[in-house]
Each structure stands twice: as structure tokens, then as C-alpha cells.
């Protein structure tokens, strides 16, 4: 199947995009890089649409900016642009790391973070990094504009609360890491014919004095949608970082998910073992980064 749409539009403003969505009344589809969507259409898994609305020429959509305590990412920003961006590397390390392992370089050069989040796969690597930063997304549509936490945007595997036929994810934002905060990402793959991760995880945490004062852990695939390991996060707060504490958090995370084996991808046991192995490691890495940010700040101060 080579046809994917009848009309291809490249609006240059959000207003124009929304007007087009209104015009097509549900028979349109917003596309970023299209690196997932068009492959699915080529494979016949999705039907062609009347109109494809390319979100990557909207004014300012390529911007990555930091204002106040917030890092803002436009819907046209590609994974490659995120990986190479100094602001994101510094203030949202796990996001840059997550985007860095998506697909291959050619796909990262075209695919967008907005698309990754809107696609709502249970284990999008960029999404996972973004969730650990407690990121939020801006959704614009005929009925106006709203910001919601990204974690609330997932409705099922590949299903988003964003109506991708009538709405557009215009911007993403996360609170920039402050001194004492650090984040990290890790993914386990297999080299055989499956492009989906066995497990993808991201964490961020904050140190106050010697203790962890906040933590966010995202992981997938452990269910139909990306998972936030709330109980494990809570268990970390109030104690100093330690290998024991991190291993305990991994066990708590495991107790709170129902892992499933997936055919040709991984057994339940292997998934669990990877969480046991790598969640403590990336927590430790995030803690090191948090500590290092303080040393760096102190170094600058003195």
C-alpha cells in the first residue's frame, strides 16, 4: 500500500492546523516525522486518510527554549535535535538518553518527541525519558488549548487521549533539573528481529542534604501504557541513596506491576530480572548526577 493520504498539508501556524482539522472533521491525521505512522500505513496496518497535517512547519515548532524553571520543546523538534541540545542534556538528561536510542539515526533525524509521546506506545524510549521528568504536553484543538501531564495522556497501547484526528500536540515542557537533581535512562533490547524494547526505564531524583527528597520512575512495557512506578518512587523518599535502597525500590516496582511475557521478545522472568538489574543502576547513576550537580554548583560558587 503506497497511498497514505489524499491531501498533504503543511500548516505554518497552530491556528491554520486547527482550521484544517476542523475542515476535515475527523478525516485528517496529524503527523510529525511520520516514521512510525507511515511505516504502519505502508504495512497496511492503518488506512490512508483524507488529509495528513504535517506539524513540523508550524512557526516556532522547532524551538527548544528554557524560560524560568521550564524547558519547552516544540512539536517539530526531532530526536536528533534533542540529543544534541545542551539545555536538554543538562536539564533533562534522561530525555536526551532516551531519544538517543530510538530507531536509527535516519529515523531520529525525522521523528519527533511529540510524535513519540502522541503515538502512546507502552515503551516509547523518548516518552519514557520525558515521563521521568514529569513532563507535560499542550494539546490544541477546535475546543481550545490545554496542558496535561504526559502521564495522563495514555489510553491504551497506541491510544492517546489526544484525538489525533482533531487535535494536535503543539508543545511539550518539563521542569528543568535544579541543583541536586539528576536523571538517567536505560533500555534492554535483543539483537533479533524485534524493534521493541524488552524494558525501557527512566528515573529522576532529587537529593536534599544526604537524602532523596523526590523521585520519578517510568518504565515500559509493563502494561498497556507507560508505567509510573509510584510506590517505588515513594519508597525512596527520605532515605539516603544506597544500593540496598535502590534494589528495594526495584522489588517494590516489581510488586506493583503485572509483568507479562511477550512472544519472541522476553519472558516475564527475564523482564523482571532486567528491572532488578538496571533500575538500581540507573537510580544510582541519577543520584551520582544529582550529587555531581551540587559539587559543580559549589565549585562555581567558590
Amino acid at each position, binding site marked *: 500500500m*503506497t497511498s497514505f493520504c*489524499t491531501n498533504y498539508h503543511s500548516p505554518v501556524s497552530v491556528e491554520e492546523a486547527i482550521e484544517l482539522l476542523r475542515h476535515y472533521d475527523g478525516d485528517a491525521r496529524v503527523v510529525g516525522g511520520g516514521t512510525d505512522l507511515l511505516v504502519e500505513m505502508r504495512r497496511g496496518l492503518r488506512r490512508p486518510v483524507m488529509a495528513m497535517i504535517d506539524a513540523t512547519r508550524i512557526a516556532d515548532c522547532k524551538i527548544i527554549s528554557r524560560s524560568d524553571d521550564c524547558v519547552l520543546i516544540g512539536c517539530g523538534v526531532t530526536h536528533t535535535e534533542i540529543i544534541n541540545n545542551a539545555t536538554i542534556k543538562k536539564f533533562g538528561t534522561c530525555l536526551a538518553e532516551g531519544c538517543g536510542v530510538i530507531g536509527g*539515526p535516519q529515523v531520529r533525524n525525522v521523528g519527533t518527541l511529540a510524535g513519540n509521546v502522541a503515538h502512546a506506545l507502552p515503551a516509547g524510549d523518548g516518552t519514557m525519558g520525558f515521563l521521568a521528568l514529569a513532563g507535560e504536553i499542550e494539546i490544541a484543538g477546535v475546543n481550545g488549548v490545554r496542558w496535561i501531564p504526559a502521564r495522563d495522556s495514555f489510553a491504551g497501547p497506541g491510544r492517546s487521549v489526544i484525538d489525533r484526528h482533531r487535535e494536535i500536540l503543539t508543545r511539550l515542557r518539563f521542569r528543568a533539573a535544579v541543583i541536586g537533581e539528576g536523571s538517567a535512562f536505560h533500555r534492554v533490547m535483543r*539483537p*533479533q*528481529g524485534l524493534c521493541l524494547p524488552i524494558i525501557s526505564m527512566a528515573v529522576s531524583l532529587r537529593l536534599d542534604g544526604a537524602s532523596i527528597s523526590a523521585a520519578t520512575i517510568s518504565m515500559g512495557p509493563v502494561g498497556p501504557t507507560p508505567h509510573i512506578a509510584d510506590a517505588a518512587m515513594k519508597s525512596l523518599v527520605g532515605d539516603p541513596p544506597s544500593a540496598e535502597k535502590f534494589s528495594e525500590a526495584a522489588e517494590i516496582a516489581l510488586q506493583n506491576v503485572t509483568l507479562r511475557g511477550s512472544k*519472541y521478545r*522476553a*519472558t516475564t522472568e527475564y523482564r523482571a530480572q532486567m528491572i532488578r538489574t538496571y533500575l538500581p543502576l540507573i537510580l544510582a547513576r541519577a543520584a551520582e548526577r544529582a550529587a555531581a550537580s551540587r559539587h559543580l554548583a559549589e565549585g562555581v560558587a567558590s
Partner: protein
Amino acid sequence: MSRLQMTVNGQEVDINVDDSRYLSQVLRDDLRMTGTKIGCNEAECGICTVLVDGTPVVSCVYPALKANGRRIETIEGLDQHGELHPLQQAFLDHGAVQCGICTPGVIMTAKGLLDQKSAVGETVTEADIKSALKDSYCRCTGYQSIINAILQASGQNVAPYIPATQAAGQTVGQPRPNPNSLAKITGKARFTDDYNFPGMLYARTKRAGIPHGRILSINTAAARKLAGVHAVLTHADIPGRNLHGVVVADWPVLCADKVRYVGDAVAIVAADTPEIAEAALELIEVDYQVLPIVSDVIAALRPNSTLVHETHAEGNLLKHIKVRKGDLNAGFAAADVVVDQTYRTPTTEHLFLEPECSIGVPAGYNPTKFGGNCDLLAVRGERAKHDKTTIYVGSQIPYTDRDQAAAALGVPPDRVRVVATLMGGGFGGKEDIVGQIHAALLAEACKRPVKMLYTRQESLMVHPKRHATIIRIRTGATSEGKLTAVEATLYGDGGAYASLSDKVLTRATTHATGPYDVPHVNVDCFAVFTNNVPCGAFRGFGVTQSCFAVESNMDMLAEKLGLDPVEFRRMNALDVGSVTATGQILRESAGLNECIDKVDFDMRGQNFRWTWDEGHLRYAWGLAVGYKNTGLGGGAPDKATAEVEVWLDRQKGPQAEVRISSAELGQGLPGVLAACVGEELGLPAEQVNVLLGDTDFCPDGGPTTASRQSYVSGNAARLAARAVAAKLAPLAAGFLGCDAATLEFIDGEIIAGEESVSVAEVLTLAEASATSTVAQYEYWAPKTEPLGSGGDMHFAFGFCAQAVLCEIDMRTAEVNVRQVIAAHDVGRALNPLTLEGQIEGGIVMCIGYALTEHYIQEQGEPWTNVMARYKTPSIVHAPKIISHIVEHNTADGPFGAKGVGELPSIPTSPAITNAIYRATGVRVRSLPVDQDELLKAIRTSATEVELAWGDRDPIPTIKFGGER
């Protein structure tokens, strides 16, 4: 339609395009810039990569309108004013080009990296290259030459990696880029899909879609009525024989009564566009009575099994192959130690990056009738005429294609012509008929050219694969370490049709002792029909499978015996004077011991340890050896005919052309043939043109299979050149006043002692005297004997040893191969540059066999239905390869050479699993290695892993000699 404005290689483009068009389609179809290739149309393989505003993107899923206002760079724009880009030059110098289908994408991806790095003034590192080319697949090279070429192009001083070989001749033994590489790095090389003819139609095939069923009715009425459809053909429309098959004609061209696998062809359609043809398929109604599916080789042989071919005399048993030598009981009675183990190998896919494509052109085709000119006229002159049904195809066996197409068309073979186009990889997977006959039938039905291009997904479903096998093997040795006996039973899944199963599994059987002197041998192999996708030839031709079992047992025996595994192999290695399992006495050219010595010496360099830890990573060495016959063997007539012509070009001087139908898969045959001819005629290889695969202009070189072309076609070319030299000699002798028998042809001169005359001068004399300067030579390879006769089953064998350094992450059981030390006895290196390419590519292909590749079928339905589900090694898997060439010359091979194409991809997989065992204590009995199962074994201190990735059931217990 929308307006698309962009620049392509600096040229303004302003066209109207359909909104639903991809950039790859605009480039290839609308702008007719076919330098950009298509491998998968799923953003997997990377060969369609172009630069958009300097950034590499895969053009197959890049909407054309995204390129509006952008700057596009493709391979065609890389060389400027005849000057090659440094990347192009480096790819040539390093032999980083083989079949060439991936080359444009790889080079453009690399250009993106170099441009980006030079913009910020950074040096390109190997890590950068591995990162940037992670999804730029190459199936031929093994990547080492690509990495080196990119480093060189970035301005670093990296010499091409060319192993030492014996002294070169004038042309033979000289490292030289393959002659067609220049076209491949500039985007000028044309593969079948790059050809377009005025009036051409597009064809698609209606597939069975079910593994087994009886056809009750086929209704094509609705499809025929669809606007834009020119023909819908079924079995009823075939004028001649409705069967094909390389060994046995058992495969319907179009199924009439039943379908035996999902890829079976039921109807074919030709239409104005591929989309219309596709739509027409949906309108063809086929009613089936669904039949039980035969998918298990052992159950298939039970008396109550459903039959795949009701009329086959032995039911589902395609063939029972036997090797008998000595007295097995006596052999095991003499053994102090015995290892008895069962292994399983997966079905695997060639994944040549060019999907199959055939173009049929009808007899009497006149392009002007369709308002155009055939652009081939300019290139091929009178060879571009179509006075008979012509098939353009990248095929490994052009003459067989011709004969089979003629049979189906119901015409004599000489009414069909096959013109070989460049082939984007073959590896054995382009020996069987796929679209050739269909394209010809449709072309004649429509009286227009018809292009039958397979999608990647169709290619995965249709063409024959490498046989899955179950191998039980029992190996006995004395306490001193001498092998006494081998007993083995193999089951090979041949799938739905015979294809080359008989030959492939015979090779698996005859090589099932490994390259060892074993006095008592008993091997049985059952080739079985199932409703799985047919299996046929694949580089290694059965030996890859049995080598895995043999070499795993050898390491287990060495451990039981307390012997060094290298020493144990040396003690038993075949050598001159040894007797093979089939009773053949090796009289020459058996360099296995030298291969073992070279690898062992390098492996045991400074601070050698078999295994060590670095943090959570464990490293270990593993070793395996292999051997592979050259040529068809087993009594099959093995010959090739070449034609060589020499003439004087007023500008360029003496020119030669060698013509033979043998196929270039990217392995470097043109360079080898040019060297053989140049050596005999004293001409530089650059002055020898090579014309391959045109059945009207090239004599038959036989099938390109069994690692035979360097030997057989090489000899034919060499001897045809010698025949031409013999025609020139009397003229030269007359001129010099000497005896013609004493003349030597060196550096463009014909020399007798102190006297000489130039070849050019002699050609002038020939012209003046109307002396023919063209000759054919029909070369017959040394006679072989059938299996069971105890005679020479093969006229030569290649030998090799490989040591691999594996890295195992003990936390995840992820396995990586970091280094391979290899030594290959090739008889004589005819072109060390392209030879090294064969070795490196073969090794990496076999790494894929061990670690990544499994074509999975579930009850006859391929789960592996898209490229995303079949991973071959990417550049990140590419190890450092240290390669030694061993040259135990053969007496009869051209300049001492024997075959090498398959040899390197045989022992790597057991070397890897032997390393895994040494690292973890876990013996892997099925491929490809599953990290999930391996980790479980490591964590539970288990000693073996039985399930590979993709396996669901344990390896069945099989009885020696089978159940029958």
C-alpha cells in the same frame, strides 16, 4: 496534486506531485534518478538514505512534500566534474563495495556524518561511524571495509586491509577493485528495478495466503474488468509446462489444483500501475478446501501424515541421503570417550537487500510504438534488440531461467533470452525461479514490457530459505584424542517444493564429520516435504548446519578428554593423504593444519587467556574449523564455456572481452575473470571487459553456486584467452621469426627471448590478414563420482579455521563478537581485495546465523513477514577481523585457486557457541542464541540451553537412522 519545489544535487526541481507520494518515488519514478535504491519500504534497511538539508533520512517513508523547499543530495550528485568524492574513492580503494545495492545509502549516510563532523572540526571515530550507520545495512561486506573507507575519507591515513598472499602475477593476485564498483559508487549501476521501458506495465502476484489447500475455483472476472488491468493469468493461460524447479520440476508456475505454501502463486496481473495491479489482486476470488498443515519434519514422515505431494513416490520423504564408511560398531568399540548430542538450526533468510525483480519484454517489442526509445540502445547497441522474449533479471542461473521460461511459454529455449542485470545480493537465494516466468508470460500476453518487482514482504514469504535442521550426532575418540567414529542423523525441512533440497542436504550429510579423518562413519539425512516455505541454496549449502553440530561436539569431546581444543583438532585434521567421510583420498591442497596454526598463533599472542572478566563483562575465545567443496561434485557434469575476443581500439589500445553467463552477485567474479584473461594475454585487467549473463551473447557458465565460479568459469576464461593467444602466436612468431610455442605474453608485449612485438601490432596484423581473434573454450572440471561410490566426490575443498573473541554481559546474557581471527585455504588468491571482502562478509553473515537470524514460521505461516522481524548483523555487530590467506595451490584450478564464496560463513557460529560455553559453562544447542534462555541457564547453573530465539518446543528426541 501539489507543487513541490526543491533542489536535488544543486538543480532546481519544480514539479507537481501526488500528495501521497514518498520522496523515494519522486526521485526514482518521477525524476528517473535511480541511484537511490529501495530495499524494504519500511524504514528498516537504510539503503534509500538521501540527505535533506544535510541530514540523512530514509526516503522510502519520507513524504515528498516534506522536502518542499529543502536541499536534497543523492548519490548522483557526489562526484563533481568527473572527480570522485573522497568517500567514493575510499569505498573503491577498500573494496567496501560488493553487490552495490546498499552502497548509495551507506555512502550518503556517511557523507552526512563527515559533513557534520567537519562543520564542527571534529575527528571522525570508529564509534561515530558505528553510531551513524547503525541502521544502514549491508549484507555483503561485513562492514570492516566500510569503517576503514569512511575513516580514510575523513582524512585519516587508513590503508585498505589486504592480507598477505603469494607473489602476484601480471594481473592474477593483484588487489584490485571489482570492475563494476565504479558504477555502483556513483549511482550509475542499474539493477533490474532501475530499468524502465516505454509502454511498460507493472505486475503483481496473487498468493495462496494459506499453507495448504485444494483449489476449488478461481474467479478473475472482476479483476479483469478493473480499469487499467491488461491481463490476469492463471494456470489455464500457460501455453507450455506449468512446472519449474532447478533440480526437479515440481513447482507450479501457477497453481492449478492445490497450494502447498503461503507463497504459492495462483494468478498474476499486469496493469498500468503497481497500485492498480495490487487492487486487482483483491478482486481475484479463490475458493479453497483447507487441508491439514504439515509443518513438523518428524511427524511428516509418519505413515498417517497428510501428504504435501500426493504423487511423490516416497510420500513426504523428499530424499534419504546416506554416508557409510568403515564399521561403525568397531569405531565406537575403539572409542574411550563418546559425546552424543542433538542440535537444532533455524530456517534463515538471505535478506539480499535487493528484492527480486524481473522484467519481461515480448518478442518483437518496438519502443517507438509506445512513443519512446529504449535507453538501453545507447548502452548496448544491437544487444538492446528484442527479437525474442527477453527477461531482464538478476539471477544466479541465467540459462536455467531461460530454459524454464521457454518450457512454460511452450517455445524452444532459443526463443527466449535472459539478460542478467546487476544483482543486489544473492547468497544462493536467487537460484530458483521467482518472477522470471511470470514476467515473460505477462509480457507475451500483453505484448508490452512487464516489470514484476517483489515487495520486501513478498520476498520474505516466497523465495526458498536455508533449511532448518535437527541433527543428532555421536562422536567417539580414543583417550589419546584420535577420532574413531561419527554417527549422525539429520532431518532437514525442505518446505513445499524440492528446490535444491537434495543437493543442499547431501552436502550437509557428506560434511557431517567435519574436516577430520574419521575411520568409521554412518550418517543418515532425511530431506522432508512440509507446508513451510521451500528451502534451497544458501551460502554454506547445508554445511553451515552440520558444522554447528560437528564443532560443538568436538569442543565437548576435547573437554572430556582433557585436551586443548586446538590440539585435538590438529590431531584429526584432514591433510593430504587423508580419506574423507565419503571415501575420497585427498591428494593435494588441504591446508587445514596451516589454517589452524595461523589462527592459533595469533589467538595465543601476548597474555593469552581462554576467558577473563572485565567488570560485568566476560570475555572468552572459541574456535571452530570448517571445509567446503568447490564445484557441483557427486558426478554432476561441471563445466563452463567462455568466449574471449581481442581487438585493437585506436584510442585505448588492445582490448579484450570475456563473455560467459556466470553471475556476479557482488562476490567479484568480473574482477577474477578479467585477471585470468589479462594474465594469459599479458594485458592489464582494466583492458579486459567482462560481459556476463546474456544468454544470447554469452556461452553457458553454469550455475553460480557451490563456490564454483572462480574455479570453473575462471578456468574457462583463462583457457579461452589462451586459445586466443594461440591464434595470435603464429602472427607474432612470423613477425619475430621464432617458434610460436616459445612466446610469452607480458605487459602488452609478445616476447621471444630478447625479441618482442606489441600485442597491438599483432592485432593490426590479425586485422590485415583477417585472422580470427575470438575463441570459445568449453572447460570441464575434473570428473567427480557419486556419493556411495567411494571415489572423488569433489575436485577440491576449501578449508578454514576461525577463532572468535566473545563478550558476554553476565547481567543480561547479551553476546557480542569483538574479534575474529581467521585463516582460509583458498588455493590461490586471484584478487586479494575482493577475496578479503568475501571472507569478512561471510564471517559476519555467520555471526548473524549464531546470534540474530531466525525466519520464524508458525504452522506454515511466516511470523517473519516484515523486514523489521528479521535482523541481520548491523555495523554495531561488526567485529575486528584479522584474516590470513593460506594458499595450498590446486593443480587444476586457475592459477591454483579453488572456491571461497561459502567457506567463511561456515564455522563462525560454533566458534561463538564454543566461546559462550567457555565463558558461562552453558552449551547452546540451538541457534540463534537466546539471551533470555542463556541468562536463565547462567543464573540456575544449568549446563545447556535447548531453546533458541523463536523456538517454542524442545528439540525432539531422534533415533539414529530415523524412525522408519
